[in-house]
């Protein structure tokens, strides 16, 4: 007995220690439950972070493109409709109208971190008799690279992007049999063509991008695609990636250009993520319930076993509130101790799993993200669950009639 320990704590801990076997088993149960939750949540967080990293590696948070061209039916002065069918016009590659002023405006927005103008369009990459259709992305290195870290994704060479240089993906290089220093001819649909020297090979972690995208300087791309002084897109990054959808809507409303957030363009990924999160949440709830029922059942048994002792405590002057607290504390302590072991178990198995599970190419299956708030939350929630689970047995103990309990 320590001087700072109140009576309720002393009694609760002694009761738990005395019922060693029961306490041990229920703590083991809580441990497994919390372990599963910690393990699952950490894997899910890691995998989500991994997927997001892959997506946002080669993509801005918001992309501004010119609004689609639409055909307007011609109306006569008498407001009678003259045309019955309206055909959707073909969508040419166009520049965003007044893109410089839009860019300057966006740069001033507090939630925007970077804005870059790009020109992109399709072209043929020709090397000898081999050719592949590619997407030419023309960028200014100083504005674009903070958004897509192309220099960081280079496997070879550099990405300075002088006017006669090009950076291509590793897959395309393989297909065309080219390497650093080789010349590559890019021909656009309009017939314009440029000869570029390959100065870098990149791997953005996405096979499609590695095969299709070729990066050239903005002016080179403008000339190749016939858009001198134009920009087909403005790439935007934000301070908060998850706010992209809202910000995109606001931009669209205020500028009239089409703004697509990465959340819209990767809707499928988000659907998968949402499903996983809701599955995870329901598993958490079910595990928490089974933990709660486990604790409650142990304490119900304990109340029955100790009813005489409870009765005698009441007879010697223990108030109902004191008895109530003794059992609530027991529930909380079981939850807390179980959650500490459970967190250790979860993190331990996570580390082992991380070491054993590898992708086919030997890279890690999921990044090991050990967020210390997770065990802290698990401990807090498990303690609370324990206290709630103890409520019914505790009330039962507090309501015991000492006369009946002692006579037993």
């Amino acid at each position, binding site marked *: *007995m320590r001087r700072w*320990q*109140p*009576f309720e704590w002393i009694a609760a801990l002694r*009761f738990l220690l005395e019922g060693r076997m029961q306490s041990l088993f229920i703590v083991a149960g809580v441990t497994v439950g919390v372990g599963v939750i910690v393990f699952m949540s950490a894997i899910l967080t890691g995998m989500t972070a991994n997927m997001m990293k892959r997506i946002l590696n080669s993509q801005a948070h918001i992309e501004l493109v010119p609004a689609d061209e639409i055909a307007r039916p011609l109306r006569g002065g008498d407001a009678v409709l003259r045309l019955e069918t309206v055909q959707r016009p073909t969508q040419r590659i166009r520049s965003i109208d007044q893109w410089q002023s839009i860019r300057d405006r966006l740069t001033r927005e507090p939630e925007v971190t970077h804005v870059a103008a790009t020109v992109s369009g399709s072209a043929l990459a020709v090397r000898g008799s081999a050719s592949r259709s590619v997407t030419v992305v023309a960028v200014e290195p100083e504005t674009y690279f903070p958004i897509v870290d192309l220099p960081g994704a280079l496997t070879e060479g550099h990405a300075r992007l002088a006017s006669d240089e090009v950076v291509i993906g590793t897959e395309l290089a393989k297909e065309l049999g080219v390497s650093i220093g080789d010349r590559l001819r890019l021909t656009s649909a309009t017939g314009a063509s440029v000869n570029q020297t390959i100065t870098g090979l990149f791997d953005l972690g996405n096979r499609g991008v590695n095969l299709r995208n070729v990066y050239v300087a903005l002016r080179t791309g403008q000339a190749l695609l016939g858009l001198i002084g134009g920009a087909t897109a403005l790439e935007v990054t934000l301070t908060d990636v998850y706010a992209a959808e809202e910000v995109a809507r606001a931009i669209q409303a205020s500028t009239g250009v089409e703004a697509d957030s990465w959340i819209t363009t990767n809707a499928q990924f988000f659907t998968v993520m949402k499903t996983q999160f809701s599955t995870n949440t329901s598993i958490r709830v079910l595990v928490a319930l089974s933990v709660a029922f486990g604790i409650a059942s142990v304490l119900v048994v304990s109340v029955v076993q100790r009813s005489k002792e409870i009765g005698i405590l009441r007879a*010697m*002057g223990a*108030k109902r509130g004191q008895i109530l607290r003794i059992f609530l504390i027991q529930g909380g302590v079981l939850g807390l101790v179980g959650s500490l072991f459970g967190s250790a178990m979860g993190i331990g198995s996570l580390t082992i799993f991380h070491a054993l599970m590898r992708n086919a190419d030997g890279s890690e299956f999921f990044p090991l993200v050990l967020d210390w708030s997770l065990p802290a939350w698990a401990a807090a929630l498990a303690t609370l669950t324990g206290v709630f689970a103890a409520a019914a047995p505790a009330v039962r103990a507090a309501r015991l009639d*000492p*006369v009946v309990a002692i006579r037993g």
Partner: protein
Amino acid sequence: MADDVLALEAVTKSFAVGTPVEVEVLHGIDLTLARGEFVALIGPSGSGKSTLLNLIGLLDRPTAGRIALAGAETTRLDDRDLTRLRGRTIGFVFQYHHLISAFTAEENVMMPLLVDRGFPDATMRARARDLLERFHLGPWAEQGVASLSGGQQQRVAIARALAMDPALVLADEPTGNLDTRSSDVAFDLMREINRERGTTFLIVTHDPRLAARCDRIVEVVDGRLVSDRPNVATNGAL
């Protein structure tokens, strides 16, 4: 009387045995216990002794009548105040010791003090130690109560009942479960405390040998107090 530890006035107790049928177990009991009395409560099984003891011990409330304990009227007190009054003025000794097995002998004796004050302190421990020494249990103070013999356990229980230095000790068949020797030791201890500290004892017993060693014998039959007489033999001895 100012020196009365306990005063019962026309106390009745009924139990519902399926509404609206009620059975009256105690019929208008009047009883006063003065400070320092050592009283035996006798009567056949089912006579209402235990019910009476529960009412006196404030573990139950009377259907009608008044109970005053150490000068305090208890009828109007709420559960909380009743519990506090019980804890501070009454000590209980039961037939089965009802010690709390998760604690040592010393801690069990401390328990009423701990319950009352909320936090353990050195004075409680000293008080418990004194009582145990007094009851020749010093060497066992640090032991779990489950390892003690029946007689030792009952002595710990008596020590516990005395921890708060209560005005009244209620003992329900305190020696009913002990052999003659242990029973004598336990009884002698209660008698000693009674003489030294003036603690009032009310002892329910079936044992005529023990009743004969009390100062006053109260007999309950069929829920009525049928006799209340001083025990000449012991009074003479005083």
